[in-house]
């Protein structure tokens, strides 16, 4: 995978998730970060730090990105969410505008 096609998402604990840009852009917030005209540091380095999102949640989020792409292309499966992370996950979703 080329570096330009991926983006590194970093959780509050410092875990790094490397995902496709197309997947990351499922989030409107991340899409704006990466496409905004001025060169913000995120665009330059290809990595985004989320100091308020835990690893556990970010992982789930990355899973969701890929699930979403599949779902959009017609593969209709269920996305399982453990009840105990629901609230945190939703707050992150609101933040990421997903």
């Amino acid at each position, binding site marked *: 995978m080329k570096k330009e096609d991926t983006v590194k998402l970093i959780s509050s604990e410092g875990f790094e998730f490397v995902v496709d840009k197309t997947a990351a852009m499922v989030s*409107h*917030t991340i899409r*704006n*970060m990466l496409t*905004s*005209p*001025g*060169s*913000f*540091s*995120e*665009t*330059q380095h290809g990595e*985004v*730090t*989320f*100091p*308020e999102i835990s690893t556990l949640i970010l992982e789930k989020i990355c899973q*969701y990105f890929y699930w979403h792409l599949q779902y959009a292309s017609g593969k209709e499966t269920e996305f399982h969410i453990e009840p105990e992370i629901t609230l945190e*996950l*939703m*707050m992150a*979703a*609101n*933040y990421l*505008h*997903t």
Partner: protein
Amino acid sequence: MSSQKKRNFKIEAFKHRVEVDPKYAEKTWKILEHAIHEIYNHNASGLSFEELYRNAYNMVLHKYGEKLYAGLVTTMTWHLREMSKSIEAAPGDLFLEELNRKWADHNKALQMIRDILMYMDRTFVPTSHKTPVHELGLNLWRDNIIHYSKIQTRLVSTLLELILKERTGEVINRGLMRNISKMLMDLGPSVYQEDFEKPFLEVSASFYSGESQQFIECCDCGEYLKKAERRLNEEMERVSQYLDAKTETKITHVVEKEMIANHMQRLVHMENSGLVNMLVNDKYDDLSRMYNLFRRVPEGLSTIRDVMTSHLRETGKQLVTDPDKLRDPVDFVQRLLNEKDKHDKIVSSAFNNDKTFQNALNSSFEYFINLNNRSPEFISLYVDDKLRKGLKGVSEEDVEIVLDKVMMLFRYLQEKDVFEKYYKQHLAKRLLSGKTVSDDAERSLIVKLKTECGYQFTSKLEGMFTDMKTSQDTMQGFYASQAALDIADGPTLAVQVLTTGSWPTQLIAPCKLPLEILGVCERFRTYYLGTHTGRRLAWQTNMGTADLKATFGKNQKHELNVSTYQMCILMLFNSSDRLTYKEIEQATEIPAPDLKRCLQSLACVKGKNVLIKDPMSKDIAEDDSFNVNDKFSSKFFKVKIGTVVAQKESEPEKQETRQRVDEDRKPQIEAAIVRIMKSRRVLDHNNIVAEVTKQLQSRFLPNPVVIKKRIESLIEREFLERDKADRKLYRYLA
């Protein structure tokens, strides 16, 4: 994690942020304010989008949205003020460029700011009914830059100045113009319209009003139209290059009004170059230009049409009433056809085949063709000429073209029955003398007349053709029969049996035929009446022809092709050398006018004078005498002796035809009246006249006075009666 879920939840802040730092909002805003400054200073590369977004997000979450929004407005306004100063300070030429550059900067900054404040845009703005960030940015730009008094006037005047420069032929930076006008459009249609379009249209109107005044003083019509067209195209191109597409109709409207509509009458009537001149000289390009330009303005086309119509009527009137041009009917009709061709071509090539123009053309022709009551006769004569000789060796398609053209003129005629009358006469002459060039052409014309006027119109004409055909068969039968055997040595006879009624024959007393001929004729009569019982034969000696073998002085042999009358005269000279006019008249019993004509053609035409007249003079007098011209000679063996016939009808003949036509119309009018009354039962006078006119329109235009007379005659014969209460009302009596 769809949008539905989050909408119904009240999102609470993260736990560890619950105890809010009182200076938190202030601090966070400082960070964001700093970032906005950096963005405007093109220094954004060091900023973290995530951090800024998070800060804005948190501010909104902690209900500091109001503060964030107000701060944004203040900061942005401050930057725009700075920009306006720098734009204002830009020297003359660079003003627009500076403005354009700052606009680009602002736009880009605005984009970035909107992105980091996206959360505010998404939640705070709709709930508190604020203007979204992007629109806010545009509004602030509009209020602080475009509507800043020092910039506003300068901007408009600079733009208009540049456009004026371009109109006078200079090259300007169109890209820049495009950007600026795009900016104005982005700021909303009202900004573009108020701040640019309106003054632009006003300035254009006065510019073109002045220019057109100047052009019209010094240019002729064609040149003026060229200039107007060029201007129009320039304006359209300008719009497509750098203005809003919606402006096109408005600016072209201005040009049309100033350059065309205001000068329409003057242009059309311009002496030596106006519409009439173009028509006369077939200036297709100019005409087409005029058509296309005038089409754009109200009443433009009707102006052209009116002038064309009156011009056509004028020239047409001259054409049909000039006695000089009436001398030769063929030429006369040819002239009409040429005129029609010419204008047809103009309408098709310059006026886009416009239906209304075609109609105007047709109505004009109809108008002036009927000004001359000899037109039906002349058109028939033209056909006659074409079918006798004009179409010899012409391909079938060309024949069709000529015939179609004739039909077109025929359609214009109001008195179609007069044409029919003449056509019948001419056709009869052609058929009997065997002069017609092509049977196909004759028939094709009759088919055309039939489609135009119906069966009734042509049935007699078709009858004539049938007679010709049956006559051929009859003659074959006659010569194959016993009757002909006895006369094998005698003269050959060719009889055409014509049905009375189909042919325009008048009952005239036959002349005295020479004995030789009489014998053959009697035999034919016996044969014919033997095969067809219950018929009557009458000889029409005024229509036949004969071939005579003659021997002159020095044993010169010739075959003379003459009419029956002429044959009778010449046969007399077999038994005597010298005859006086009186003697000839007695011996032949040919009616005097015909006799004079025959003698004239026998004695007075140079090269064909088989008789010598004493005394020598042009005209035949009652006391002239004649003898055979022994010295007659000719290069040809066959000599055709024509009859001096006036091709055109003479005045008395014309009167006679007229009378016959009027006579024929009477039963037609009566029939129409009866038809109408039969269905209506009761009708008043004016309505009858209108209905009758409508019914007969396709054949002729009945005169109301004549109709009245016919009604009276019908009342006398008790077809109709006047209503007892209302004298204007007629009742049908079954």
